[in-house]
């Protein structure tokens, strides 16, 4: 059996009286391509916020590479190897693309030795993702697809073991979706475990080796893409009664 | 030192003061709580209103409350103009948080300086038949100059509350507060709604200004004292809740009145700021949060 990189046990999160997550358990194996799906408001984003540290889970535990991270501030989780992209891109608006990438490089990959030459490394990553010619541009000058690429590139610059891609393809054309998929496949081949949250079924189904479905804050199904598609509960959650 | 009579007097004075504080804070609660426009210049608009009231009262003998109502109209358009600038320069470009705040801070300061240049730094007051008189209930003396603002403040609260919860436009304002998209789907233009609502918020400032100068003499820099007080009330009341503002205003009024009576007047102001700091640190959503 493969090694578990991320393990979530009975995680619960409430906002006031609203139960955003109830007793959710799942795990992600090392170097796995993992899909997380569910209707709007099912708790996907809450769950990854709990993993990345933007929110604190109330019950249960979150283990990353065997370490309990539930109480850690977000930046330390990033330094342990968890990086994420945001559903609505959140670039550093006053910085060029190159400088955007220098932040995670300086603060995560080279956190011990501030001052390493991170610019050339940032350039390499921009090159990989196809933004090298826009290195000196500001995020405001980017198109929608380039903004998504920047979001991924910045997460890559944190040199993560686990990359959480939060709806990186929403609103993109079919061609552009393929472009992002290609990047994610390549990252996975390079040894990065990936959690994909996505509404575009074609993308999640072709990308994921295993999928977990959330509905109303609870896990309702888990399995290979085929198993999930044929699951009655999933059908009901998506289509209603 | 402590007597029952003093206690009752302080309590009543605090409640009356609270009714006035509500009038002072409603406009801000509307713009800050419902429209997300942090108009920290609101107290300055109120002092501006006080001086206009003073001007027509001094020169033409107009009743202060009437003056406040009359000036509400031009103030509405002033508010519309200010919001237009704010929207075009800050909100549209997403720069409202930092620069928008500084913008209103600058407006606050400018109004104060213009008032000093025009009227000087002396205290000004108004004349009206009810100012200076007191009526008695048993041994309890109630000053009309406190009672009238309390009545007007209460009426203004009820009026705004009814307006927001009962009229179509009021519901649209609440809609903007919760979700602009829903309003747009209804076919209403959220920016237009926000403009009008902001105008109404500023329009309440003249009436509040009249009440302020009825309660006591006013000088240009008095607005500073009120910044903390009105934010304390707005935050404590739960942003955007008119009934919450009224309750919070009563609480602050009573707390200040007790502090002034039993500890010393110079500590009264510290109470509202203290409450504000604690409230911000512990429960930013307010006591009566939505």
């Amino acid at each position: 059996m493969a090694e578990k990189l991320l393990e979530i046990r009975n995680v619960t999160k409430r906002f006031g009286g609203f139960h955003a997550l109830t007793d959710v358990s799942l795990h992600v194996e090392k170097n796995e391509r993992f899909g997380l799906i569910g209707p709007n408001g099912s708790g996907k984003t809450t769950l990854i916020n709990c993993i990345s540290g933007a929110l604190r889970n109330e019950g249960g535990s979150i283990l990353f590479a065997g370490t309990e991270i539930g109480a850690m501030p977000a930046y330390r989780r990033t330094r342990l190897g968890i990086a994420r992209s945001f559903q609505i891109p959140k670039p550093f608006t006053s910085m060029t693309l190159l400088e955007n990438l220098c932040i995670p490089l300086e603060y995560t990959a080279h956190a011990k030795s501030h001052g390493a030459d991170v610019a050339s490394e940032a350039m390499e990553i921009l090159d990989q993702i196809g933004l090298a010619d826009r290195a000196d541009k500001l995020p405001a000058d980017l198109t929608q697809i380039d903004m998504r690429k920047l979001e991924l590139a910045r997460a890559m610059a944190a040199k993560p073991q686990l990359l959480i891609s939060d709806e990186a393809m929403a609103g993109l054309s079919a061609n552009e979706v393929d472009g992002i998929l290609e990047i994610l496949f390549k990252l996975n081949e390079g040894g990065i475990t990936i959690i994909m949250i996505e509404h575009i079924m074609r993308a999640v189904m072709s990308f994921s080796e295993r999928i977990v479905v959330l509905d109303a804050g609870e896990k309702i199904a888990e399995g290979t893409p085929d198993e999930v598609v044929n699951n009655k509960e999933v059908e009901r959650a998506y289509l209603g009664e | 030192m402590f007597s029952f009579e003093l206690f009752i007097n302080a309590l009543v004075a605090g409640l009356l003061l609270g009714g006035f504080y509500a009038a002072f804070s409603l406009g801000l609660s509307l713009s800050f709580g419902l429209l997300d426009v942090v108009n920290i210049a609101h107290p300055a608009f109120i002092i501006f209103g006080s001086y206009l009231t003073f001007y027509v009262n001094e020169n033409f003998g107009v009743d202060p409350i009437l003056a406040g109502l009359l000036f509400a109209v031009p103030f509405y358009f002033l508010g519309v103009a200010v919001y237009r600038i704010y929207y075009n320069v800050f909100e549209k470009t997403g720069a409202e948080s930092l620069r928008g705040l500084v913008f209103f801070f600058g407006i606050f300061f400018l109004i104060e300086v213009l008032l000093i240049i025009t009227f000087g730094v002396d205290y000004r007051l108004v004349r009206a038949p009810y100012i200076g008189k007191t009526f008695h209930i048993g041994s309890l003396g109630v000053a009309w100059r406190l009672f009238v603002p309390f009545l007007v403040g209460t009426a203004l609260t009820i009026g705004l509350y009814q307006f927001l919860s009962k009229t179509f436009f009021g519901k649209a304002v609440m809609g903007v507060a919760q979700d602009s998209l829903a309003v747009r789907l209804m076919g209403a233009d959220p920016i237009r709604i926000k403009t009008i609502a902001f105008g109404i918020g500023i329009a309440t400032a003249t009436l509040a200004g009249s009440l302020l100068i009825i309660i006591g003499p006013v000088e240009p820099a008095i607005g500073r004292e009120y910044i903390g007080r009105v934010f304390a009330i707005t935050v404590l009341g739960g942003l955007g809740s008119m009934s919450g503002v009224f309750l919070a205003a009563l609480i602050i009024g009573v707390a200040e009145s007790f502090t002034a009576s039993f500890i010393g007047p110079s500590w009264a102001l510290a109470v509202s700021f203290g409450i504000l700091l604690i409230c911000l640190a512990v429960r930013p959503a307010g006591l009566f949060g939505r």
Partner: protein
Amino acid sequence: MKSKGHLLHIAVALAVVLVAFLITNSMENRYYYKASYVVLQYVVLATAWNILGGYTGYVNFGTAAFFAMGSYTAVALIKLWKPPLYVLLVAGGAVSGLLGLGIGYLTLRLRGVFFSIATLALAVVLQMFMTNWEFVGGGAGTAILKPRSVPFFSNYDEFLFFVMASLAVAAVFVAWLIENSWVGRGMAAIRDNEEAAECMGVPILKLKLFATTVSGAMMGIAGAPFSYFVVFIEPSSAFHLDYAVNSLAMPMVGGTTTWLGPLIGAVLVGTAQQIATVTLSAEMNLLIVGSLLVGFVVFAPEGLVGLFRKLRGRAMGRSA
């Protein structure tokens, strides 16, 4: 190359301090020392404000509180045992730095406008405490005797001018150091997007605490010599709203993202104020500051530094 840059800047800084010293030995008119002292004090305050406001994105309306706490710490020490000025500077900086640290913890819960309102509230509460603290003069204020003589300077005002000039140089230097270090880049990330910054590994709380502490300490240090400068100190002057408005307007006029912005803003606006106070009136000078603040924030959000860059960019674009 990096250390060479440092050396050059240190050399420039020392040269400015030396010039300030030479001026005190050649210029007679006391008014100029007074006026320059005020301008230099604003260089420190504007630079300090900008470390938190411009670099990190947290708007502090309570400059007066930090400044006055520095002043009143000094007043309390002077009443107790008249220590030398450097002790006052250190103590004033320490007290206001601690206050800054406390405000820093508020950023855990308060962002944007809530933080700003809290700083404003803090200023009023502290002013209340000082008004009620009789030992340092209470609301009526207290007179402070300045030391009669000081070595190397012909009078104490010249010495204070020299001290403030050195503090201004030091403040600008600290801002420059921060701006060009990993700390400054992390602050910029927080200003641009706090959530994204933390997810990219930036320890946001530590950096914010650093920013509030350094900024507060610098304001406190600027306030420490204040009572010697004005000779009579009262809460309403030490906590004056002008400090909050100026320390915010000056970086806005100059430009908030670089160390140069507050420096240019403070020198220009500060000097203009000194001239306006003499030639027009104190009220007109405030009107100018207010108009400049609103004007720049509406029409030139990047300040003079930004305007200059834009012009240069256009000129270069034309020649290319």
